[in-house]
């Protein structure tokens, strides 16, 4: 993953968190959730603000908007990285002739055979058969129609997979080192 343009605010915030950890008692937040402590860090929220609960100067709870908290962003990014890993794996298996292109579209839509069966109305054992390349390649267009409709693609697109996994998220964490 290429390193994004350095974004100063992310760096400053990160330095701040690291500093508070080195001189505080290891890793403690301990702020009684004051209004000014509501994290305003990078979030994978496409610009949406979310609401956090925090205490004002008089000790009363108020609603405070937050742009994101690095802790949450790390956990969320991790979940998407796991999906990306699965996509790489399934493309390799398709390449090796072990799985049909349907498997790629299934993983891309975060489904397994059971969920795909529920959504498409195709019975589970049929879905499993359709995940095998030898059987998938012989399927007529009408047998693929339920999947195509579900994934909002046409049957031709369903028969194809990209060389590399499509990027699932447009947003990426600034300064992402990987």
């Amino acid at each position, binding site marked *: 993953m290429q390193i994004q343009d350095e974004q100063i605010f992310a760096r400053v915030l990160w330095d701040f968190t690291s500093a508070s950890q080195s001189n505080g008692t290891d890793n403690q937040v301990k702020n009684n959730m004051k209004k000014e402590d509501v994290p305003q860090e990078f979030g*994978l929220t*496409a610009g949406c603000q*979310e*609401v956090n609960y925090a205490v004002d100067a008089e000790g009363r709870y108020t609603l405070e908007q937050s742009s994101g908290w690095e802790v949450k962003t*790390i956990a*969320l990014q991790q979940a998407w990285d796991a999906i990306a890993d699965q996509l790489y794996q399934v493309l390799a298996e398709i390449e090796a002739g072990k799985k049909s292109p349907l498997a790629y579209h299934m993983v891309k839509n975060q489904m397994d055979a059971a969920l795909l069966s*529920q959504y498409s109305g195709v019975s589970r054992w049929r879905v499993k058969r359709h995940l095998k390349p030898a059987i998938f390649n012989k399927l007529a267009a009408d047998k693929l129609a339920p999947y195509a409709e579900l994934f909002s693609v046409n049957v031709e697109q369903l028969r194809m997979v990209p060389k590399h996994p499509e990027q699932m998220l447009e947003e990426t964490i600034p300064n992402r080192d990987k």
Partner: protein
Amino acid sequence: MKINFPHRQFAHCESGVTANLLNYHGFPCSEAMAFGIGGGLFFAYVPFIKLNFLPLTTFRTGPGSIFAKATKRLGIEIKREKFSNPDVAEQRLDRLIAEGHPVGAQTGVFWLPFFPPAYRFHFNGHNLVVIGKEGNEYLISDPIFEEPVRCPVEDLRKARFAKGALAPKGKLYYIANMPQRFDLPQAVSAGIKEVCRGMLKTPVPLAGVRGIRLLARQLVKWPGKFDEKQTLLYLGHVIRMQEEIGTGGGGFRFIYAAFLQEAADVLENDKLLDLSKHCTEIGDLWRDFALLASRVCKGRAEIQDSFHDLSQLLLQCAAEEKILFGDLQRVISD
């Protein structure tokens, strides 16, 4: 057709929907109050039920229960409907809006186009209020967002009939009748008692304070049991359940602390203010846990030692919550 529905942004979908619906029907209500009366706070760790291949971890009661219990405790008459046929479900929704009812709906997040892409997982417990229809779009008050949003008819239909765990089956709900008088203190006490029971007196060791201890015991074994990738996925999942899914921070503990402040006024009992402070401190502890956990996920902390520390933090959360809910139970039954 658009209902004049005052939209307010909140942290959590179901308590936000409940508060906004109550407000529309002339009962001014904060999100924290709806959450508290509805007895929303909880904890459960159920390792043998998997969501997306990861163990079920929740900081709140089951979907639908906040609205159902909050309205019941306030003596409000509600209607709930489920459907097997999407066409019928859509016609019913359209009719209700045309009659002027803002309608709550349970939906699957994966199909909602107005959600930030990074949040679109197969999670079927998301609640929103449909407040109108214009052409081929529904107008929606989703309390997670700053402003009302629009959603194509086709997408809402998919979202209402999302499949898998917690499948909504087109579920709709709305307020049919408001009572003349409310017994707010009674409703608040009932909500608090339920949460105390859930946290302290569960018959199974998976829920409440015992559930937190179970997670502490199991978590420390993860690095020995799974490979590193799986271990970190398990840990990241706990962070997400705690902080991500519209919790208002600290696994709903801050919302609950806000509720206890309001409850102190309603019940005219200043002891609840002290308990609110304690609840805030517990929320901070959970945030400590998430902070350290995220450092482990990022590879910035050593795994073996960190898992021991994480487990200790959870045991501390469990111990503090046992004290808090014990105190709360005593204050309420006095």
